[in-house]
């Protein structure tokens, strides 16, 4: 009987700890929502900032984040999906494959500021793109490439061998059977990985700190070589380097709220899609 008492006590302790963690998550979210919601208005979302960010809206920052994320996805998705197809279909166990996996793990574990530094040294200075959307997107693409490769590879591996075997037995070549038979079925998993990548790219500051972001630009970017405002960088500057902290607090909360809502909505879409497809494709 004694051991049953120990079991109930320990289980309750673990339950309380886990729910404390969940409580902390909701506390963060509700604090930002409670203080940020009053600051949100249609003007806030569609106007340009005035008086060095103390009034007005954050429209260019939203556009900037959107442009950066699009550029990142255009670069990272094809590259990531191609790498995943190579790793799951064509790669033979050997030195090269081991090196590729080692490289993916290393890239995934690199600190984001080191990637930002690399982006500064390589894209901005060496390739002479300057601080531009181009350098920022390429740096962010390097950052989310491992995420996309890993999730795409998982999606491809979850498709049973019989798909490929059936297609090959009917006379299709290897590339044809992958392109027309396996890849379309893996699209849900790849899409989920892509959406998670979008969420990460939208929220990261350190890579864009040195390569693209500016705080106060008078007009929207007109070419891919322009600097751009971005939501995470905007929040960082408002929170730490603005001289008029009292006046700017509601805007800080508003920007934080927009950013967290954006990332949360993206993640919820990804998680829902993943569980929907997991239930649908039970093969």
């Amino acid at each position, binding site marked *: 009987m004694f*051991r049953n008492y120990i*079991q109930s006590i*320990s289980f309750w*302790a*673990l*339950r309380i*700890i*886990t729910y404390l*963690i*969940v409580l*902390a*998550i909701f506390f*963060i979210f509700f604090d*930002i929502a409670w203080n940020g919601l009053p600051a949100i208005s249609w003007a806030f979302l569609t106007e340009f900032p005035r008086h060095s960010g103390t009034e007005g809206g954050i429209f260019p920052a939203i556009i900037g984040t959107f442009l950066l994320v699009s550029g990142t996805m255009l670069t990272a998705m094809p*590259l990531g999906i*191609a*790498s995943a197809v*190579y*790793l799951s279909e*064509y790669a033979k166990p050997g030195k090269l494959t081991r*090196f*590729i996996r080692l*490289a993916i*793990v*290393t*890239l995934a*574990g*690199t*600190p*984001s*500021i*080191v990637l*930002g*530094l*690399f982006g500064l*040294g*390589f894209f901005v200075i*060496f390739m002479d793109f300057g601080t531009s959307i181009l350098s920022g997107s390429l740096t962010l693409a*390097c950052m989310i*490439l491992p995420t996309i490769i890993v999730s795409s590879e998982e999606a491809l591996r979850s498709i049973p061998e019989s798909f490929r075997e059936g297609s090959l037995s009917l006379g299709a*070549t290897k*590339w044809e059977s992958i392109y027309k038979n396996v890849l379309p079925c893996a699209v849900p998993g790849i899409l989920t990985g892509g959406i998670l990548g979008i969420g990460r790219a939208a*929220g*990261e*500051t*350190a890579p864009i*700190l040195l390569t693209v972001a500016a705080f106060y630009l008078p007009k929207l970017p007109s070419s891919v070589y322009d600097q751009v405002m971005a939501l*995470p960088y905007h*929040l*960082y500057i408002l*929170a*730490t380097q603005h001289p008029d902290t009292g006046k700017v*607090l509601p805007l*800080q909360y508003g920007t*934080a709220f927009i950013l*967290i809502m954006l*990332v*949360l909505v993206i*993640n*919820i879409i990804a998680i829902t899609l993943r569980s929907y497809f997991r239930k649908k494709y039970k093969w």
Partner: protein
Amino acid sequence: MCKVIYVKLKKFFLKKTNKLVIHNNMSKKSKEKQAHLLLLLAGTTSILIVLSIMLFLFKEAAPFIIDNGVSELIGTHWRPVSFQKELFGILPLISGTLIVTMLAACSAVPLGVCGAIYIAEIANKTEREILKPCIELLAGIPSVVLGFFGLVVVVPFVKDFFGLETGLTALTGASLLAFMAIPTITSISEDAMGNVPKSYRDASYALGANKAQTIWHVTIPAALPGITAAIMLGIGRVLGETMVVLMVTGNAAIMTFSPFSPVRTMTATIAAEMGEVPFGSSHYSALFCISVVLMFFTFIFNMIAQKILNRQQNV
């Protein structure tokens, strides 16, 4: 006569279609080869990116080592801008990173592992369906938002609660960093515990143990490699975190072991000083040296974790 013409026409067209078929097959073959080559190139991009990162870091850090030598870096004062001699000792920065990381690990590891145990073994199905996405949502919160939350909520709280002069301390930074590490630790530990074969648990129940005894004596020791890998990956993530520490730990490059004093980590130094440093100066190279050290630390942690995970998968 018509039959001859008919046969000749048939032969002519068959030859044409055969040629077409042969041509199609050959172009299919070359398409295959092209596809294979392109995919191989795409696969090696990750290697190229990592190699160029390492190359670049070393190339830009080299001028400092060549001019001033490594002993310049092993000093206890980081004063890169000074009217007298500039000091580039990175020991205060390393100690800052270590304090913040150790404190974060002290709270994140127990909380994360307990959460993983609860979710993997004790929670019922509906609870698990709610808890897992919640933890994943925590992983998705951007680090700037967490830093901002720390700045406006946690910093004043720490200041009032402990009666300090400023709330921007290593402790605040560590508590926020724990939030970033907990999802990583929890999800990988939970995977590890799920991979323990059912036969282990069944054997333990058959011998008369109840659930808590099974978890404590059988499941956790069996999943220990995976849990260790999860902890190392979480610590690796904390090591490389920039924005939270930049906003919340106070940015004072002093060498201290007290959790109540402001510190400055390697990541915060790079982020804060890189924007204002003249290109090509020794300060610039010194910042790249710091990033080499940082990359080295995270690389070691991630490699150890990966080796443990691989060994577990092979078994």
